[in-house]
């Protein structure tokens, strides 16, 4: 934990190489404005926690980062490439951006091992043998070494989400996107997923996490963004963010969730 503290203090948001640069991101569904001009830089090694009320656009923001949602306007530069440009091969960039979903989205017709090895093998990143070896390594890391031959339906929610994290990790991404990873879990399973994420953060993984877990934001986050009405209303390092919020909406929000 001491390492972590040190990391936080040296990892101020103005240091480190910019991994994702978001420029004036806007998204509209019909006349409904979901994202109203979001700009931010996400640096290597940062753990950016995004909070906000439901319908604030925080999920849409996260899903725009790997283009699961196509922004109406604005730019997203990932490792220097504008991935919103029409001639960009998004598949190549998505291979470097892992994503973990609220509903896990494991492939129910495949074993856990196959779930993890499918993408690395299909995209030509690893051979089946290499992928198998890597998968077993990752299963160890998420604490489920004996589940390789299980099917997703045999697992608990917490186990499913840990497998989903392992699946995303198998592509050796440069950044991991988490879309409310613990929101669909029974309360007693939240901890096991958060501790995997914490361990991941400690290992230096760049993470963007949309969550309602304020404890996680405070403990693990290196920066917290508050999104409301499609805009970043406030951002700060977690300590200041929670201790002295300035934005009125954030104050109201925090008073409700804390």
């Amino acid at each position: 934990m001491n390492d972590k503290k040190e990391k936080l203090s040296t990892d101020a948001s103005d240091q480190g190489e910019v991994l994702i640069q978001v420029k004036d991101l806007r998204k509209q569904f019909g006349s409904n404005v979901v994202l109203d001009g979001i700009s931010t830089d996400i640096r290597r090694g940062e753990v950016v926690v995004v909070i906000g009320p439901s319908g604030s656009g925080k999920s849409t923001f996260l899903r725009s980062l790997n283009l699961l949602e196509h922004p109406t306007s604005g730019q997203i530069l990932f490792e220097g490439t504008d991935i919103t440009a029409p001639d960009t091969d998004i598949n190549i960039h998505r291979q470097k951006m892992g994503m973990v979903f609220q509903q896990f989205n494991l492939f129910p017709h495949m074993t856990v091992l196959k779930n993890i090895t499918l993408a690395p093998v299909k995209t030509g990143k690893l051979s089946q043998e290499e992928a198998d070896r890597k998968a077993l390594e990752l299963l160890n890391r998420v604490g489920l070494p004996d589940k390789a031959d299980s099917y997703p339906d045999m697992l608990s929610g917490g186990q499913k989400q840990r497998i989903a994290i392992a699946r995303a990790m198998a592509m050796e991404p440069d950044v991991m996107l988490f879309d409310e990873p613990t929101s669909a879990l029974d309360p007693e399973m939240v901890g096991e997923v958060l501790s995997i994420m914490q361990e991941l953060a400690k290992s230096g993984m760049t993470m963007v996490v949309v969550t309602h877990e304020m404890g996680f934001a405070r403990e693990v986050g290196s920066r917290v963004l508050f999104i409301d009405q499609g805009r970043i209303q406030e951002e700060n390092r977690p300590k200041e963010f929670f201790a002295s919020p300035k934005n009125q909406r954030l104050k109201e929000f925090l008073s409700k969730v804390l």
Partner: protein
Amino acid sequence: MQSFMDSFYQNFIEDHRYMYLVKGLGNTIAITFFALMIGIVLGFLVAIIRSSHDKMDHPGAAIKILNAICKVYLTVIRGTPTVVQIMIAAYVIFTGPNVPKLLIAVITFGINSGAYVAEIVRSGIMSINEGQMEAGRSLGMNYVQTMSSIIMPQAFKNVLPALANEFIVLLKETSICGYIGMMDLAKGGDIIRSVTWEPILPLLGVACIYLIMVCGLSALVGKLERRLRTSER
């Protein structure tokens, strides 16, 4: 009992009349099998085009045109009776004297079945949670890879009972081939009836053969279904 044996002999054995049924059955099986192949290929293609089009935010011109063609195909084929379709095929389209009737029947039933298979498969694709496609794409797999290794296997399993039903319908529907002068199983029985002036045995015999084939097909599909299901638990 004696009269039954006489009747049986007269209808099936005398003059090798059972050969009408054997040859007819051969045609029925051949038409069903090849039409099935055409129907599956055509149906899956149309289903994939239709569902891909529907899922896209801004479909391109090519897929729009393909989708329109598919829609016309589905409307026309599902909106007209199969018996009319096969007569149009035989007497309007393939009018040449050298076109084998078997070929006409295979093409007609294949195209006809394809339309129904397409809608069945499309419903299967649509039944798969959007999150499955998103998970596949978020891992960097392209659309085709995600479709073929994640969406289609699950969709296929979901629609297997409906597909089996379509194949049973197809098998029985080939019995309208008599309309274009082909001898399938039903027509074979009908020929025996017209020769022996004895409707009961030939027609019940034909019905039994269809029933046995359908039961066999159902059992086969049931087995496949169970095998696909156990692979998940």
